[in-house]
């Protein structure tokens, strides 16, 4: 036995320190400061304890609407990413190595460009007189030009494209661990292609789908560039509102309160979700 084994936690603790310090400085410290600010008056000296920021958020229907929209959009975006991403990931695991590489590169490629540039791309496609409108008109589906700009549908389309890679990549991790013999066994036992996927592949991919959808949900709750550019001022989301309070109205106290409400409600949704999915995924 080496001398180091007498203190089994010492070496792991050393390895953990840089990450822990970074998290402390970059997340917990600002989060606690925001928490404090949300309960303090802003601009008075000295700052006093107050609930006025939360009262304002509760009373103003506008912010309730922003909150509901934010969560509704995040759920729709997550659901669509699951619906599109899972079959895509299944196909990627089943094709030959050459095609698989091509598909993975195609999935990752959008991540190499800035979100701003990708979103401007969507503006060109979704906007009035854009490619989408023009194509539908040429096909005779619609008779006058449409625009998905400043609509929730437009936000969802642009966001799904931005976030799909996260879901596909995490799901690929799970799918890669399923031995091919399980799917073959299911087929020989009479399952057929689609039922094999439903009864074998899908349940075994739950861990990847769970972490992927959590990632997508968290990212879409907190995103503000794409919703702000596509949705405009009328269709505000929480992150956009907070940004505006902090940088436009300079109402830091109210911005902090909105941040706390967003953080808390996100946790209220995510924690039960994690518990349920880990229970399903943990059965194997």
């Amino acid at each position: 036995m080496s001398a180091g084994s007498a203190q089994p936690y010492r070496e792991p603790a050393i390895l953990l320190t840089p990450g822990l310090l970074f998290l402390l400085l970059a997340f917990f410290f600002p989060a606690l400061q925001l928490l404090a600010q949300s309960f303090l008056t802003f601009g008075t000296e000295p700052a006093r304890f107050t609930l006025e920021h939360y009262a304002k958020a509760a009373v103003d229907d506008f912010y309730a609407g922003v909150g509901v929209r934010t969560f509704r959009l995040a759920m729709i975006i997550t659901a669509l990413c699951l619906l599109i991403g899972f079959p895509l990931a299944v196909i990627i695991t089943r094709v030959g190595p050459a095609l698989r590489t091509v598909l993975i590169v195609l999935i990752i490629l959008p991540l190499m460009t800035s979100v701003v540039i990708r979103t401007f791309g969507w503006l060109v496609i979704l906007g009035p007189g854009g490619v989408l409108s023009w194509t539908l008109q040429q096909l005779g589906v619609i008779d006058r030009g449409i625009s998905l700009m400043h609509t929730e549908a437009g936000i969802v389309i642009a966001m799904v494209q931005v976030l799909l890679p996260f879901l596909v990549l995490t799901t690929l991790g799970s799918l890669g661990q399923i031995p091919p013999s399980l799917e073959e066994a299911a087929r020989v036992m009479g399952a057929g292609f689609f039922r094999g996927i439903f009864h074998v592949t899908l349940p075994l991919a739950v861990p990847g789908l769970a972490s992927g959808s959590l990632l997508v949900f968290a990212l879409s709750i907190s995103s503000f560039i794409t919703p702000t550019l596509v949705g405009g001022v009328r269709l505000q989301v929480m992150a956009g509102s907070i940004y505006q309070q902090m940088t436009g109205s300079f109402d830091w106290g109210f911005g902090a309160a909105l941040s706390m409400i967003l953080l808390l409600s996100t946790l209220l949704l995510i924690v039960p979700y994690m518990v349920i999915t880990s229970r399903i995924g943990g059965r194997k």
Partner: protein
Amino acid sequence: MHQMSVRSIVKHFADLKVLDEFDLDVAKGEFVALLGPSGCGKSTLLRIIAGLETPDSGEIHIAGRSVTALAPEHRNIALMFQSYALLPHMSAIENVRFPLRMRGQLSRADQLRKAREAMSLVQLGHLAERYPRQLSGGQQQRVALARSIVGEPDLLLLDEPLSNLDARLREEMQIELKRLHENLGLTTIFVTHDQNEALGLANRITLMNRGSIEQQGTPEEIYRRPRTVFAADFLGGANIFELEVSESDGVWSGSFPDGSRVDLAVSSDLEPGKCQFMLRKEAVTFDPEQSMSTITGTIQTQNYLGGQTRSLIRAGGIEIIAVTDSDKTETDRIETQIGWRPDELIPLQNV
């Protein structure tokens, strides 16, 4: 009528020809072993029969219908994978019920009843609710076996069924598999590289080499009368050496490198000249009878195996290994006479 037949199956992987115009017929209730070294094409053939690989050309018939173009789920067969391929997110009983559930011809209650029956056939009824990860390797194998027989398939395919078990369990499962086959009469084809498994389980052994059949027959035929050097060598336990064959007045004899001569049994395969012969290690005795061929040798070394003893004997200018009952084994390292029945010395085609 054959329960299963494959005709002229050809399969390439890239430029490599894995199966070359392969034919095989299996009668109803037969227990056939596809035996051969790795890379001989036996596993590919099994996967082609199951529908998991598509042959380049050829025909497959199962239970009287052509299944060549059918997907695996429509072939009404069962395949037990080497890795068992139990579904980790389902309990043992759910795994066993899975084929019935997918075929959907029975009510849920009947499916469960049949699954329980299959579980008790493999003596695992008490572990029905366990998940695969909570079962030992041997128990997992029994679940996989129950899952394979539960749907009364037209054909049961087993891929290296015993290779993941330790020696003691392997012996136990050999008996179990044989008993199940005798009770259920399922037409069974299994793939193995282990000659003992093939000899112990099958009614018929199809010995494969480089994508073709090397020799086919009952275990006894294959073991006692191999036709080629490959067959003699692969079935194990053989001395293989070259003798100079000559004939005078209808009596055939062979001479060892040092000039010692032994009589050869009359066989149509014999012709004068050099020829490879096989002599099973158990055919050699230290106590030859009058009618036997004999030769003088010296014992080089011996391994005591319990009931039997293995001796390395230098005789006729070559080394011969004998496995004999320990109580009938010469134990001093001295010159000794060894002998065998002339028909135990089998001429081989040198391929």
